[in-house]
C-alpha cells in the first residue's frame, strides 16, 4: 500500500477523508493514510508545497495562489460549495451595528468587516458584497484579525460591525443577543466554491494514479458524509457510527455526547465526486489579481488541473 499524509482541520467539513479511512475506502485503494491536523489552512498549504503532506482541503487564498504560481501546488477538485438547496454562509452584524442601522448587507458601506488575513475567503466575500451593492470596495473596512476566534470575539463585543461565516458557527452566534443575521452570502456569490481539494504539483505530474485513487476513495467518503449529515438519508445507527469516527479528530477534547450535535451542525454539502465549479474559481482568481493579492503570473492553468474530476 502507498503511504499518504492527508492534512485536515478540526472542522466537520474536513470529515469525508476521515469517513473514508474509517469505512476502509482508502484500504480498498491500497492507500495507507496518516492524518495531520492543522490549526489553519495556510500552514497546510505550505506543508503540501514542501511535501510533508500530500492532500488537503482549503479555501482558495492568496497563499495558495502564490504557491501555485511557484508551480508547487495544484487544485484537483472541489469540496464545499454553496448551493441553493442547503443552508449556506451567513452575513452577520453585531448588535451595536444593527441598532445603528445595519439591517441589510447594503448598509455595510463605511462599516468594518472582520476577516482572518488579507487574501482570505472572508476578504473575498466582503468585496463581493461591496461589488454587488454597488459601492467601492474600499468603503467596506476589512479588519485582519488572524483567527476565527478573534473575529468572533470582536463581533460579539461590537468592535467590528460585520462578518460572514458558515451556518453552524453563525447559528451558534445568533442564538446569543450580541449578533444578528443580516443576509446570505449566496445572494452575492453564485455557486461559490468555498473549498477545494489540492495536492502538490509533483503528485499530479509524477503520481497521477495515486491522485486518482485518493479521489476515488474520497468521493465515497463524500457520498457517505452527504448522506449521513447533509441529506440525513442514512439510518441513525450508521450516522452515529460515522459521527463517532469523526469525533476522533473533531471536537475530540469533548465527550461524545457534547460533540455529537456540534459535529452534525457543522455539516455543509460537499460536491459529489469532488466536482469543481470552474466559474467560481475563475471569479476568485480574478478578484485576487485585481486586488494585487496574487502574483501577476498565476493563471487558471497553473492553479487547476482539471483532468481528475468533473469541472463545471
Amino acid at each position, binding site marked *: 500500500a502507498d503511504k499518504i499524509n492527508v492534512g485536515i482541520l478540526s472542522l466537520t467539513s474536513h470529515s469525508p477523508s476521515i469517513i473514508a479511512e474509517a469505512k476502509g475506502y482508502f484500504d480498498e485503494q491500497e492507500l495507507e493514510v496518516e492524518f*495531520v*491536523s492543522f*490549526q489553519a489552512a495556510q*500552514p497546510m498549504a505550505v*506543508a503540501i508545497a*514542501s511535501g510533508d503532506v500530500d492532500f488537503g482541503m482549503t479555501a482558495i487564498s492568496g497563499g495558495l495562489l502564490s504557491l501555485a504560481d511557484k508551480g508547487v501546488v495544484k487544485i484537483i477538485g472541489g469540496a464545499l460549495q454553496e448551493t441553493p438547496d442547503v443552508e449556506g454562509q451567513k452575513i452577520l452584524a453585531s448588535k451595536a451595528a444593527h441598532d445603528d442601522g445595519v439591517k441589510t448587507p447594503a448598509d455595510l458601506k463605511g462599516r468594518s468587516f472582520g476577516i482572518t488575513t488579507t487574501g482570505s475567503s472572508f476578504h473575498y466575500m466582503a468585496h463581493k458584497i461591496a461589488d454587488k451593492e454597488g459601492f467601492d470596495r474600499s468603503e467596506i473596512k476589512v479588519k485582519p484579525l488572524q*483567527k476565527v*476566534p478573534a473575529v*468572533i*470575539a470582536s463581533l460579539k463585543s461590537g468592535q467590528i460591525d460585520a462578518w460572514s461565516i458558515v451556518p453552524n458557527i453563525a447559528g451558534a452566534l445568533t442564538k446569543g443577543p450580541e449578533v444578528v443575521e443580516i443576509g446570505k452570502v449566496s445572494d452575492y456569490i453564485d455557486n461559490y466554491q468555498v473549498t477545494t481539494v489540492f495536492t502538490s504539483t509533483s503528485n499530479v505530474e509524477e503520481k497521477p494514479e495515486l491522485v486518482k485513487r485518493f479521489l476515488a476513495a474520497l468521493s465515497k467518503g463524500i457520498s457517505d458524509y452527504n448522506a449521513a449529515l447533509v441529506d440525513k438519508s442514512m439510518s441513525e445507527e450508521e450516522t452515529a457510527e460515522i459521527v463517532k469516527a469523526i469525533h476522533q479528530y473533531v471536537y475530540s477534547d469533548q465527550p461524545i455526547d457534547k460533540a455529537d450535535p456540534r459535529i452534525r451542525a457543522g455539516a455543509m454539502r460537499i460536491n459529489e465526486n469532488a466536482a469543481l465549479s470552474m466559474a467560481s474559481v475563475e471569479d476568485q482568481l480574478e478578484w485576487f489579481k485585481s486586488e494585487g493579492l496574487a502574483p501577476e503570473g498565476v493563471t487558471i492553468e497553473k492553479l487547476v488541473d482539471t483532468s481528475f474530476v468533473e469541472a463545471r
Partner: protein
Amino acid sequence: MSDQTANAPIKREPHEGLRPVPFRGGGFRHRKLGPVAPVVFLAILLVWELGSRSGFISQIALPAPSAALAALGDLISTGMLWKHLGASLYRLLVGWAFGSLLGIAVGLLIGLFSLARAGLLPLVSALFPIPKIALLPLFIIWFGIGEGSKVATILFGTFFPTVIATYGGVDNVDRNLIRMGQSFGMSWLSIVRKIIIPGAMPAILSGARISASIAIVLLVAAEMIGAEFGIGAYILMAGALFALDQLIAGVAILSILGLSIAWLIGKAEQRLLAWRN
C-alpha cells in the same frame, strides 16, 4: 604614656547634659515578611472569584478562577495533561538543549577568537531581534511540520541569547586569572578549560535562565505549526474555541512550568557555583 587596663573605670566622663546619640540608620533594608505573598495571591483570587460570581467581571472578559481550576481538573482527570506536558517538555528539552549547546559553542568562538568575533558578532546582533513568529512560514518549509519545525523554533529562540551570555561571560573572566595561567606557562587549552570556561560559567547559567524563559514563551509560537498535543497547542485550541477557562488553565500551566524551570536552574547554580557566596 600611661596604660589603662580593660574595664577600669572610665575617667573624665562628664555628667552634665548626657543624652543618647539620635538614631538615623533606619529604612532601606529589606525585612522578611513571610506570608505576604500567598496572602496577596489568595486575596487576588478571591476578589476575582467573587467578581466573576457576582457578574461584576463579565464572563467573556475573564472566567472565574474556579472555572479555570475546573478546566485544569478536567485536564488532569482525562489524563490529557500528561500528554500535553510530555509533548511540550520534549520540544522544550530538545530545542533548549541544542540551542544552548550551539549557543555556548558559538559564544566561546566569539569570546576566544578575534576573527570569529569580527565575523559572527554583527550577524548574531542582526539576527537576534527577529521575531520567530514572523519566520513560521519559512520554518515549515525548512523543517517540515513534524517535531522539526517546533524544535527549531525553540532552538533558534534560545541560541542567540546563549551566544550573547556566553561571550559576555568569557569577556568578563578576570584578565588577571588568565595572566596568572600564562605566567605559569599553562597551555592555551588548559587556560580555556580550567580558567575561562569555569569563569564564564555564572554568566552561562544566567543566560540559561533567560533562554529557558524565552523557550517557554516560544512554545506557543512553536506549537502553532501542526501540533496536536502540547501546552501551547492546548492554549491555541482554547483560544480558537474561545474557551477562556481552558486558556487561563493553559497559561497557568506555562507559568508554573516557567517557575519550576527557574527553580531547577537555581538548584543547578547552587551546585555548580557552590564556590561563590
